[in-house]
């Protein structure tokens, strides 16, 4: 695999124009490396300084390693309730 599929929601889905994008980076890579790669993509300029990332349904630290097969999602500022 030379890309990581990333789930997108709400304003991030609007920014990148889809609900899933393939980010061109080879796993394993860190969460912050993935975010850096996303900044270079169309719509990536609309990401905040430290976007939240979830890996396998849990919030992930910037240095967490993403492996092939992990479910990765970029989490916009939450606004439930």
């Amino acid at each position: 695999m030379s890309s990581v599929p990333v789930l997108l929601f709400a304003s991030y889905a609007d920014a990148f124009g889809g609900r899933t994008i393939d980010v061109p980076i080879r796993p394993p890579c860190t969460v912050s490396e993935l975010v850096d790669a996303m900044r270079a993509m169309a719509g990536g300029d609309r990401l905040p300084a430290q976007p939240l990332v979830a890996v396998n349904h849990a919030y992930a630290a910037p240095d967490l390693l993403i492996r092939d097969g992990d479910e990765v999602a970029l989490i916009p500022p939450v606004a439930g309730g």
Partner: protein
Amino acid sequence: MAGESPVPVQGGAHVAVVTAPIDVAALIARVQDDGVGAIATFLGTVREHNDGRAVTGIDYEAYEPMASRELERVATEVTERWPGVRVAVEHRVGTLRVRDASVAIACAHARRAPAMDAMRHCIEELKVRVPIWKREHYADGTREWVDPTRPAVTA
């Protein structure tokens, strides 16, 4: 409180992301128990204005599997911090109109202080952790995703 009620959860909390209207009496029945003396409930409802703009409805979107997991984590933390508390949380997704309930939390305990503290903790944690988003529909026809990290334009 009268009438038939669903079978209460035996151990563990009830959490759910739902599409149908939330039935608060049914949620309360889930945490009811012979040992319960106090039930604190929170309802979040859609209001007709926000940040100075007239709101006609709200789309709620969830990252469903993670939202359920995160609600479970919040509920587990609450039952660890306030032993004996019984928790039920439901968050609705889809398009809601003014007055519709988007979220309902019921916390029950033998005593009122733990029930109220646990309820408040649940809604505060939910607001900052659970991956759910809302897009407001305004009276002028526009729609916008709400970003709580962005300062409000008006009070």
